[in-house]
């Protein structure tokens, strides 16, 4: 793979190729790292849950007033909620919206960070100063309170707007990292060669420079997703995002407001989404952390 470094330096492989190599390298190292591999399995599990959950459990059931807050049993392994609906069904169905909006937010914030960060590092000058000022402003804005204010604009039928709002608060850290990397990469010989050949800004940024950062971008995507899920669940829990349908955040809110603090039998109803969200976040963080050790050799010794 890396037998001819001179050749690689002359013509860097394509983005797809780089991504595939990063993935392969990542997987082989995850395989050696027990905790990281467990995290990877967990992430796979939650992706599967997001994709197939609502297919396994097509509906969350009709309210049944005779079955309110039933303790766990064979017919209801996690008991029932304040309306007598099955809790397990809701947990299985409830991952999709959270994971989808989290992924969408992470994609958006990563895109903003990569394009803007690479662009301003490459062009420098006034544009760079303006973007860095905006970055500083967004970094110092009290994130959670602002999120709460922005959430007031979200309507029921527009989950993409929620994703956009989460993304708007999440890009600055990655942008700074991308900018710093591009600033150092753009001085390399092959980039100067590309510039001499007049290959165009777009080509140089996306074909020559960014593929070198593929692994880093991959990691910051998962970090962005954990951040987006954190914020999203806060909004649902506080009742600030529209409450409709099955999702873990809404389960948390209803369990909290409809009785978990008052009834001992409602315990599985609130603990189920707590555990689901915690496991999802834990899987992503452990997977990312082990990947980080692979891609950042400086961390490997520590």
């Amino acid at each position: 793979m890396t037998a001819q470094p001179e050749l690689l330096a002359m013509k860097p492989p394509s983005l797809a190729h780089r991504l595939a190599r990063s993935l392969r390298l990542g997987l082989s190292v995850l395989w050696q790292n027990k905790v990281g591999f467990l995290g990877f399995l967990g992430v796979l599990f939650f992706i599967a849950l997001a994709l197939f959950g609502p297919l396994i459990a097509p509906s969350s059931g009709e309210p049944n007033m005779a079955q309110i807050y039933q303790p766990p049993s064979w017919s209801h392994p996690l008991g029932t909620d304040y309306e007598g609906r099955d809790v397990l069904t809701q947990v299985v169905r409830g991952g999709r919206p959270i994971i989808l909006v989290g992924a969408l937010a992470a994609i958006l914030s990563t895109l903003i960070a990569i394009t803007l960060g690479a662009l301003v590092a490459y062009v420098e000058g006034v544009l760079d100063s303006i973007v860095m000022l905006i970055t500083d402003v967004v970094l110092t804005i009290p994130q959670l309170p602002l999120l709460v204010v922005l959430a007031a604009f979200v309507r029921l039928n527009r989950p993409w707007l929620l994703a956009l709002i989460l993304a708007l608060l999440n890009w600055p850290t990655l942008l700074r990292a991308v900018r710093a990397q591009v600033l150092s990469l753009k001085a390399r010989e092959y980039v100067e060669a590309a510039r001499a050949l007049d290959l165009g800004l777009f080509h140089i940024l996306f074909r020559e420079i960014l593929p070198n950062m593929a692994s880093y971008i991959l990691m910051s995507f998962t970090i962005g997703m954990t951040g987006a899920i954190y914020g999203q669940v806060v909004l649902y829990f506080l009742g600030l995002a529209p409450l409709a349908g099955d999702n873990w955040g809404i389960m948390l809110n209803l369990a909290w407001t409809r009785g978990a603090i008052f009834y001992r039998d409602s315990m599985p109803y609130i603990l189920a989404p707590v555990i689901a969200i915690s496991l999802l976040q834990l899987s992503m963080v452990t997977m990312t952390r082990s990947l980080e050790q692979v891609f950042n050799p400086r961390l490997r010794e520590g």
Partner: protein
Amino acid sequence: MARPATVETTSAQSAASAAATLGRFALILWRSYIVRRLLKAALTIYLVSTLTFFLIRLMPGNPVDVYINTLISQYGFSYQDAANQAAALFAFNPNEPLLAQYRDYLQALAHGDFGKSITSPGTTVTSIIATYLPWTLFSTGLGLLLSFALGVLLGMLTAYRRERPIDHLLTALGSFFQSVPNYLVAIVIVVFFGVRLGWFPIAEMRGAYSPGVQPSLSISFIKDALYHASLPIATYVLTTIGSWLLLMKSSTIATLGEDFVTVARARGLKDGRIMSAYVGRNAILPLFTQAAIAAGFVVGGAVVIEQIFQYQGIGYILLQAINQRDYPIMQGIFLIITFAVVLANVLADLLYSRLDPRIRAMGGSQR
């Protein structure tokens, strides 16, 4: 600044040289890192508060509507009665142009006036902040101190006991609680340990202190305040100690490999002395900048936690203000939080250049 006072210089010349002096002075100021940093901080605060000013007022619903709706839904008022009552109570006109409101806001702010609450007429925003901010500073600040101190100690411990069971256990626990969202930890504390197991009297522990008690500096009041703050503090410590531990661990391991430690060992110094005076002191330096940044988030960092434990700090009041659309309170709290974060970042930058001798050398002699 030596302005030529001799008779033969023409006024044009003296004006030109005065301008040059001024220009040079401005350049010196601009070259000064601290001045530039402070100017940027001031600009950031201005931009953030302007942005939040307009965002807050663009939110759907305004304080009058929210109040009218509450009267209708909770007290069974007719719309007309509710609207009359709202008009009598609030000196707020939702139809005033935004730019005029913005101008008024900036003018008042320039005089140090944060405005008055809309929904509790007669109460100034300053007095609300003065009432609730101390509790947030107390609980979260104490949490930060505890978390930092414990994390540093445990981090050194794990670095010295590397690859032993205690290292694996503490590192795993630290990483675990760092990944689990803090509000979920708080919910589990209330629901599982409070309601299910009955370890904590959750209802009794609400608020910043027991009802009917007068705040004072007596031992019994401090005990009462600590009792009420204990669960928010525990949540904060549990969910942040991991990052201090991991930071301190890697910093200690890096320091242990430095030459001066080897030399100290060769000199036959006692292990305890090497540990505290050589390794610990050097390993903790890079953590101080992080601690400064974390201190900036102390003010605004506990919004959800305060809500869950019903702890009456600034975050709790902010959420209430948001629900009632009480613009001046929201605006004032935003401003305080932003100010804290910006100030902490400036301090962290200055600390960083002070603490790291390499940066100090670069900034001082070479450039």
